[in-house]
């Protein structure tokens, strides 16, 4: 077992804060001026500003989705949030050039170290803009693009403009509209045909300022027959006031390509994490969302795959852990739009203390398609008496050539299991921790090695002191 000391250091890994002076600040609140300021600072083309302004009016028009979502959304005050804060426009290519305060932050989070060890490229975003971005030279030479949205749209419009805002239109929901209006930072990635990236690319998102909203935008295009694994991690210090993170992530998997997108979300308990993630899978392409939600106050995130080409495959594997004061509202969407497409959703949630976890699913199979299959499993584990779990799938199947199966169960760790482990010398909390790890183990194995070790540790931490 891991000793208590080690655990204590780790728990507060993300909970620190350095005073920072920002060179660019769009002020507090949201209006047209703020949007224009962001666009001007970034020196954007006219069409992007139009896109932003149009999205702003959509955002202002759309109601909050409280008729099905959590009422907690109403406690977000859009007028006290700062929408753009940055030290500069261009990310550094070497850690030495990164300003000290920012560098210290990422050093403490272990990013440069991880980069040396096992990553093909890293981008580190500090509030609104990337502070550091670098990719292995060999990949650059092969034509892989790993840039920010500004650079992507300006320098490579032929590649990115075609897909930008197409998988998730800005009017998709209130928060995708908000992101489209004020987006800044994020990764635009292009992998050329046939190229298989052996090592993952990583982005690390850090919120440093109080009352801040982070709105990064990610667009990954995997050209025919290519393969890519992308990982993102998120942390923020614990502030008293609410912080907003609202990203839009679009994936485009062209014919025969594979995209694997891994998220380990460990925001502090004051962050509203309202993210729209969707992928488009063409013929024979495969998209996997691997999603782990441990932090945040309220997460609403339903990664989806539109299976547009024949034999495309979509998968969502998700783990959610909801502790006191947290609501993990996660799920998956699978829209079958071509024959012989298959999808698989496995969701495991754990509710501890007064935590609440919710699964929402959407499966659609129109009648003109043949041989589409979906499998959905959602399992929930409740640890304490006042924890709460919900499951709300929605399945639509038309025609007589498709099949869907959905299963969900709710259970708790049985007294016998705990007794058995205690008898063998484990303490009650160690025993509980082991049972919980066992519950998610088959999913954790799907994560890359480095992450699965980290995840197991994180789950142990969250479990500590929760029983008894």
């Amino acid at each position, binding site marked *: 077992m891991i000793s208590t000391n080690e655990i204590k250091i780790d728990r507060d890994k993300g909970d620190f804060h350095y005073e920072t002076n920002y060179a660019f600040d769009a002020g507090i609140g949201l209006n047209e001026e703020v949007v224009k300021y962001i666009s001007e600072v970034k020196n954007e083309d006219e069409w992007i500003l139009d896109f932003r302004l149009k999205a702003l009016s959509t955002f202002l028009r759309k109601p909050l989705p409280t*008729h*099905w979502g959590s009422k907690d959304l109403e406690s977000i005050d859009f007028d006290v949030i700062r929408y753009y804060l940055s030290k500069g426009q261009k990310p550094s290519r070497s850690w030495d050039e990164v300003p000290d305060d920012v560098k210290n932050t990422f050093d403490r989070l272990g990013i440069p170290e991880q980069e040396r060890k096992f990553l093909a490229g890293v981008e580190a975003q500090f509030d609104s803009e990337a502070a550091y971005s670098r990719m292995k030279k060999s990949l650059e030479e092969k034509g892989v693009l790993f840039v920010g949205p500004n650079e992507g749209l300006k320098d490579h419009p032929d590649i990115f403009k075609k897909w930008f805002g197409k998988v998730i239109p800005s009017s998709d929901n209130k928060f995708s509209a908000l992101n489209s209006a004020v987006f800044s930072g994020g990764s635009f990635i292009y992998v050329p045909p046939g190229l298989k990236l052996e090592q993952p690319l990583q982005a690390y998102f850090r919120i440093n300022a109080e009352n801040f909203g982070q709105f990064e935008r990610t667009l990954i295009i995997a050209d025919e027959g290519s393969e890519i694994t992308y990982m993102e991690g998120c942390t923020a210090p614990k502030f008293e006031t609410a912080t907003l993170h609202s990203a839009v992530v679009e994936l485009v998997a062209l014919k025969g390509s594979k995209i694997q997108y891994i998220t380990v979300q460990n925001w502090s308990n004051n962050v509203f994490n309202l993210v729209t993630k969707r992928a488009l899978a063409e013929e024979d392409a495969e998209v996997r969302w691997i999603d782990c939600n441990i932090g945040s106050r309220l997460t609403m995130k339903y990664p989806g795959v539109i299976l547009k080409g024949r034999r495309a495959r979509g998968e969502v594997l998700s783990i959610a852990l909801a502790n006191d004061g947290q609501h993990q509202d996660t799920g998956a969407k699978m829209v079958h739009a071509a024959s012989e497409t298959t999808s698989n959703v496995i969701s495991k949630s754990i509710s501890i203390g007064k935590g609440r976890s919710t699964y929402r699913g959407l499966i659609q199979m129109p*009648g003109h398609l043949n041989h589409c299959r979906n499998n959905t499993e959602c399992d*929930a584990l*409740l*640890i*304490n*008496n*006042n*924890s*709460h*779990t*919900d*499951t*709300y*799938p*929605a*399945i*639509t*199947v*038309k*025609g*007589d*050539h*498709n*099949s*869907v*199966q*959905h*299963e*969900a*169960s*709710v*259970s*708790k760790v049985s007294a016998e299991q705990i007794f058995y482990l205690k008898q063998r010398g484990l303490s009650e909390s160690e025993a509980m921790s082991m049972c919980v790890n066992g519950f998610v183990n088959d999913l954790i194995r799907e994560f890359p090695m480095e992450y699965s070790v980290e995840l197991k540790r994180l789950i142990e931490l969250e479990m500590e002191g929760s029983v008894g």
Partner: protein
Amino acid sequence: MKTALAPSSGTSKSFLGANEFFSSFSDKKSWEPEWLSSHRKTNWNLYQSLSGTKSKDDRWRFSPRSRFSYSKVSRLSSSSSHLSFKAVDESGVLVSSIEEVTRDQPDYLMNFQELKGPELGAQESFLLACAFAENGFHIRVGRNVRHTEPIVIDHTSPRSDEVAFHRNLIVMEPNSELILIERISSGNHDESGFLTNLTNVKVGNGAKLHRILIQNLDLNSTFHNLENFEIQRNSCLRNVSIQLGSAQARIETKGNLLETGANFENYALTLGKKDQLIDTRTMQHHLASNGRSDLVCKNALLDDSKIVFSGLIKVDERASFSDALQTNRNLLMSSDCEADSLPGLEILANEVKCSHGATSSRVDDKELFYFLSRGIHKSESEKLIALGFLDEIIQKINLADQIEIVRGLISGSFPKN
């Protein structure tokens, strides 16, 4: 006996909301006790305040609500002509009509005012049934009475263009037992109006109710069926619902497991054909510990039919050691049918065993091949496969003669060779 025609006040608004209509209706009911007329008035006012609110309602997700609209009919039919049963008043069992009970003992049904509907979305139907129900049946089974002979109630649909409201109350006193068969049908093809049926059931401590509902309305009629079951300590309610007819049916069934040891079984089957829409909403609400609930909903779909199944298992914080199951199986037998499943769980207690499963699939090619290779025609094979698929529910009827009737009705729904 028909109530006077009242012109509808707007294009989409129902005549039931018109002031003149309600006052002329109330005038005819002047013999009713004071509490009942004020009960009608209260609910009618609530109905008035309801219309006009057109916000998105998740309880109607996937359901084209306009198909159930009361603006499609223009007259209220007298419900007494749409209900028939054998009245009983002996050895602790009372089977009577609501109208008769109210005439004989004006205050006997006063608790009508406190009864709730299933509250799963069809609030409009609930309020209208409270305001306009002219009849319905009332059954009371006395303490320790075991009535082994099934009681049969027949509801029939009004004529097309008309609506009828039935309001029923079943009270099972402690340790009583009863088997109830409700048949809902159209007398002839012309009887294809709206039938709205609101039923409240109270199952007392240790009592057992086995209720079978067989709906085989004309394929042009509309059926709203609202059921709210209150299940007490160690009592058991088994509800078997067979939905075969109507153009569109909205079925709302809620079982409240109010006290420890309550047992709620809800088994439903639907055979969808033509352009039928069967919209089933259920809730298994565990309010006390050691409750057990089981729901199985099986649907076979032909032609252009559509089924919506929405089921929620809700386990309250104090309802520990609850055991709740929910299964939805859809058999899709044509290229134009549609099945929407919304199985839901809301769990607030931790010592529970809850699960749900939903599958939608087609006829297994191997099964079909087996039949065909033995010289059985394709349509006959499909009929047999559907009958086999639905048999799990049919068996729950547990009465040999009724099982045969239901099998016959299902077989008859398939095209002849």
